[in-house]
């Protein structure tokens, strides 16, 4: 474990200073045992005096006992707290995924949810990357068989391509639907549109999709419990 490498990744001088102080003290307390307080996913959170560290279940030390809190989120992902700030740490890569810039980091469904004061971000532990780093309030957590994930900020929705992480921001989308392929959204004029990868609406592509569906299409958003049936013009027929 290269603790010095971890420290160098931290951008906040005050947090580095705190951890440096604690590390010096921890080094001097080598004779005190560490007690296991949580075990999950082959990881063990240990405590010495009042600080927490991380070990592999085979006792290999991954992080020294210098943190105010450690939570095991997924097999290789833990969240670390120093004072009121949280960071995300990948044990397998031995690196900080984020700095100590969040007020809360927790597991939410199959993602890691990272909260700032007025927005959220999400990290995908399977694809090992951010879905959205920050700036949103909500993400599609309920329906996972979609080509695109929707994310919501205030009144409006954007889309994230699951495989590539590419963000698509069509203007004025006030409702997004969970569809296996493509991006369908309701605009501010109460019409459902099909959006291309550039974020512009494509009436021709919408028309193709609706014709293939037999003239009407049912669109859902499970999170908001919405079901809309639309026609080839994007009119909602059951509202």
């Amino acid at each position, binding site marked *: 474990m290269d603790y010095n490498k971890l420290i160098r990744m931290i951008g906040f001088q005050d947090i580095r200073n705190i951890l440096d102080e604690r590390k010096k003290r921890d080094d001097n307390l080598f004779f005190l045992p560490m007690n296991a307080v949580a075990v999950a996913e082959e990881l063990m959170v240990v405590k010495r005096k009042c600080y927490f560290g991380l070990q592999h279940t085979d006792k290999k030390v991954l992080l020294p006992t210098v943190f105010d809190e450690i939570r095991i989120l997924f097999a290789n992902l833990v969240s670390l707290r120093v004072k009121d700030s949280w960071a995300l740490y990948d044990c397998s890569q031995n690196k900080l995924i984020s700095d100590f810039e969040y007020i809360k980091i927790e597991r939410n469904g199959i993602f890691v949810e990272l909260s700032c004061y007025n927005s959220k971000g999400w990290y995908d532990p399977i694809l090992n990357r951010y879905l959205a780093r920050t700036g949103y309030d909500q993400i599609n957590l309920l329906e996972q068989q979609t080509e695109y994930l929707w994310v919501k900020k205030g009144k409006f929705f954007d889309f994230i391509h699951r495989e590539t992480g590419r963000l698509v921001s069509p203007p004025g989308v006030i409702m997004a639907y969970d569809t296996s392929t493509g991006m369908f959204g309701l605009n501010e004029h109460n019409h459902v549109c099909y959006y291309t990868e550039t974020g512009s609406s494509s009436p*021709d592509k919408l*028309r*193709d999709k*609706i*014709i293939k*569906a*037999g*003239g*009407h299409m049912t669109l859902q958003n499970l999170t908001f419990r919405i079901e809309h*049936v639309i*026609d*080839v*013009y994007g*009119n*909602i*027929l*059951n*509202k």
Partner: protein
Amino acid sequence: MEENNSLRYLIVKECCRSLTYDSLERQFSFPLQSASFLSQIWERIKPQAFSHTPSFRRDDFVSFLTRLDSLDAQYTRTKSDGIGDSQLLPGESLDLTMTSSKHFLLIKMEDGQYLNLDTGQGLTFGSLVVFQGNASITTAEGNQLGICKSVDILCPNEDHIILDRVFFKNYHRRSIGSSLWPVFNHALKIIESRRSGFCDEILDLSIDLGIGSFPTLRILNAATSYGL
């Protein structure tokens, strides 16, 4: 003054009668209740109307009724750069403006086959036809209608959608039928019978074919022009 959907639904439900054929007027419509009955209805639904839209007044009620009374002639117009038969669904309406300034109002009845909404005549263009500007429009029999200058798609508006919710319940749960000629043929039978009255069987037929009030009314009223 914009009514919300719940208010529109309430007014249509209370004030419109079901699909009716008037043999004197030779017209299919969803007629309004009688004037005196409408006044009673307004008094009765006023509290509910205010709860949906607090600023809704009698003038707004009358204005909405006026729109409902002319629903068969209403639509939203969308310009098209060109659209082929395979890109159109049965029940979709086109307005072809020709270079001669003549208009052809058509509704697609099945692949390649259209109904002239003004004359009630069927026109066959074939399924490979593309309606677009600067293109000659010719029927499969070789009749030239002229050179097309522009194409507009005529779409239903929100009032049609509310009418559908009241009278064409859940029609959208079915796929649109491959042919809408049964609606036209049934209309002809009703017209030939010269009997005025409700046409519930046409409503049922339209619902089965997955179409709502907008294409239904256009097909029915085209049938009234057939043979004239």
